[in-house]
């Protein structure tokens, strides 16, 4: 339906000469000349969730820069998402300062490792980071896993490992986190959302 209608709402410089503005005796010439001095700026609004606490407020992040034109995109403003039923557009002082966290020079943006004996942090790839963490987990679990307690009852505990899950995880990641970690015998499982 819209395809046939659409063209008729077209407001363009070629049309204005025959528009109701011109037909009513008001010249669009000056307005059309002005248009040539203008340029368009582009911004986007992206939904996200505040990472700080269990309330998980919705936020709208405003960025500038045209992804399609290889220009560097930059977040310029963050505010509460008015459509989110949890916070209805509001944010606490900590959430209201999210933009400063995004632009903080101290923010960790990629995995880093400080090797034993070294005093320097070294950047590593995600694949490398995940592989190293997995190896550490496996070695620790193999060494410390408790299959049976003193009475001989099966307990399958892994007491020497702890996990802190993200507060921005929705139900499904939360379910997966719990299933995988409990399956490994992890007891010390907590989430940032509880803090």
């Amino acid at each position, binding site marked *: 339906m819209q395809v046939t209608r659409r063209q008729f*709402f077209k407001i363009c410089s070629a*049309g204005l000469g025959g528009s109701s503005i011109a037909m009513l005796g*008001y010249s669009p010439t000056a307005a059309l000349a002005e248009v040539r001095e203008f340029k368009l700026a582009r*911004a986007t609004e992206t939904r996200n969730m505040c990472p700080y606490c269990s309330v998980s407020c919705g936020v709208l992040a405003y960025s500038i820069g045209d992804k399609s034109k290889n220009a560097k995109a930059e977040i310029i403003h963050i505010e509460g998402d008015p*459509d989110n039923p949890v916070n209805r557009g509001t944010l606490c002082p900590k959430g209201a300062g999210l933009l400063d966290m995004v632009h903080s020079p101290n923010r960790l943006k990629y995995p880093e490792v400080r090797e034993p004996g070294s005093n320097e942090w070294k950047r590593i790839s995600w694949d490398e980071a995940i592989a190293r963490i997995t190896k550490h987990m496996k070695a620790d679990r193999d060494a410390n896993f408790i299959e049976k307690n003193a009475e001989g009852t099966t307990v399958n505990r892994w007491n020497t490992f702890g996990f802190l899950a993200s507060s921005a995880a929705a139900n499904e990641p939360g379910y997966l986190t719990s299933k995988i970690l409990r399956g490994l015998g992890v007891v010390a499982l907590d989430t940032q959302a509880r803090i």
Partner: protein
Amino acid sequence: MTTLLEPGQIPQASGEPPRVLTPDAKDVFAHRARRFVQLAEGHPLGDYLRFMSRLAQAQQQALDALPAVPVPDDEAKSQSSQHGMPLVPAQSWPRDPVWRAALSIILCEAAPAASETAAASIKAVGAIDDTALEGLAERVLRTELYGEHADKLPFVAAALQVYWTKLAVQLGAAAIAPLDVPGVCPCCGALPSVSVIGASPEVPGLRYLHCSLCNTEWHMTRAQCTACDAAESSVAYRHIEGDKGLVQAETCDVCKSYLKIVRRDKDASADPVADDLATLALDILVDESGYSRSGPNLLLVPGGG
């Protein structure tokens, strides 16, 4: 002593924001008229905007003078809501001939401010017989804003806006249920002319679509295409570099359409219709970027069609 609260005693938080807002009959067009005057200052289309201000003022006078009009009865209302249809559809509601009385008032009140050419158009509209007027009304209500009579349609549209605004006011927001399609007005089924942010004082940042015909506003989630429901990743906001971004064009890369968005949260005096007509430069630039406008401003016949 501790008192235990029973369920229902705890006061509700601001709660659900209103889904539908009906226009303020006392001020809807008068506010628009004031805004047109503000915008005309130093504007290259200043004379046109000042005339539109007078037209909006005339609409307010016509609305003030309009007696109560027949609205759908309870049975018709429940039937509409049962089928998810607008209550007084622009194209099928048997409109009361009283809209032509509103037109007479508008023509009479707007004439003194008109340019010579506009005065001639006003005179010409006044001379059209009732049957032909109803024909022009049909064209406006089908949003056929092109072809002959480009100088007459805005006056007919102005009168129809007054009549449909009266209907919306009489029905009231409580009677107007949101439809399952977000892109058309739940009161009259017309297309929105723009979106407005900051229309509801309860939740300042919400987006409402503003009806091009009856001035009803209805809620729609932000950062989403109003024409095809595409998600935020396909939607961008464009405004003229260097301005405050009070009026932006929300463009969609899925359906290649756009609708302007008026940020009343940045300036509370902004008006959906007036600010739209004062920012045609934005339309032209966005059109040149390859997007088509998805909703009309009934007071403007854009030409070229």
